[in-house]
């Protein structure tokens, strides 16, 4: 994909290889936007965590990645949506260590720590939308 011409990506995530693909695309866009090596990997890792949440809890979802500009500052926007079971108690899910699924359950709070801005919207039975942003420092 020629990232120079299109600064917005939309990818379906339903398997492990999708997780790798979407985080690599995210990393490429981050690189194009001028994020440092470390920031690129931080972003890719956050995308990986969120994508993994989708695959584990909702089986399928969509992740959109786009570039942002705000008063000359550049940034990356990631929106992950699924129509899965939703999170009943967002506050609880955001606590470190909380999990209903397998593993460390660090998806949401972990990703929040990695990004500059982070929002979760979710309703039980209606799905979840995670919006995260990071700005080039």
């Amino acid at each position, binding site marked *: 994909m020629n990232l120079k011409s299109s600064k917005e990506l939309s990818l379906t995530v339903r398997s*492990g*290889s999708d*997780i*790798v693909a979407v*985080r*690599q695309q995210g*990393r490429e866009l981050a690189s194009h936007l001028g994020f440092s*090596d*470390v920031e*690129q*990997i*931080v972003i*890719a*890792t956050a995308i*990986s*965590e969120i994508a*993994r949440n989708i695959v584990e809890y909702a089986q399928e979802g969509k992740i959109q990645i786009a570039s942002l500009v705000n008063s000359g500052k550049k940034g990356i926007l990631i929106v992950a949506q699924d129509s899965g079971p939703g999170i009943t108690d967002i506050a609880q899910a955001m606590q*470190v260590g909380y999990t209903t699924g*397998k*593993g*460390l359950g*660090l*998806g949401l*709070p*972990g*990703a929040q*720590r*990695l990004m500059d801005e982070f929002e979760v919207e979710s309703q039980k039975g209606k799905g979840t939308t995670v919006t995260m942003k990071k700005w080039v420092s």
Partner: protein
Amino acid sequence: MRVPILKQGDYLIASIQSALSDEDLLQLRDDLAEQVGKFRSRAAIVDVTVLDVMDSFAVRTVRAIAHMIRLRGAETVIVGIQPEVAFSMVQLGLTLGDVATALDLEEGLAYLNQQA
């Protein structure tokens, strides 16, 4: 893509060549467990130099690898975690527990030889 595992004396060395899918990582776990048992290796070194992202699944699986290998009486050393990856991991709060780590393959072998 299956991760190649080399036998070097008492040790097994698994060098990850490219970004791994979840299945590949789980396969590596099973392959290492099997081969450690088969060759009665004293230790396994997993080289993750090439991995640019280690997320919670990767860390879980690496810890699972170490656990399974320990059950067979052997030690695991993870080598090659890159600065950016180490940084992201601690930001995410991911730890490798008491799994040994070394800078690279050379250091990993030096460490194991010292243990001998």
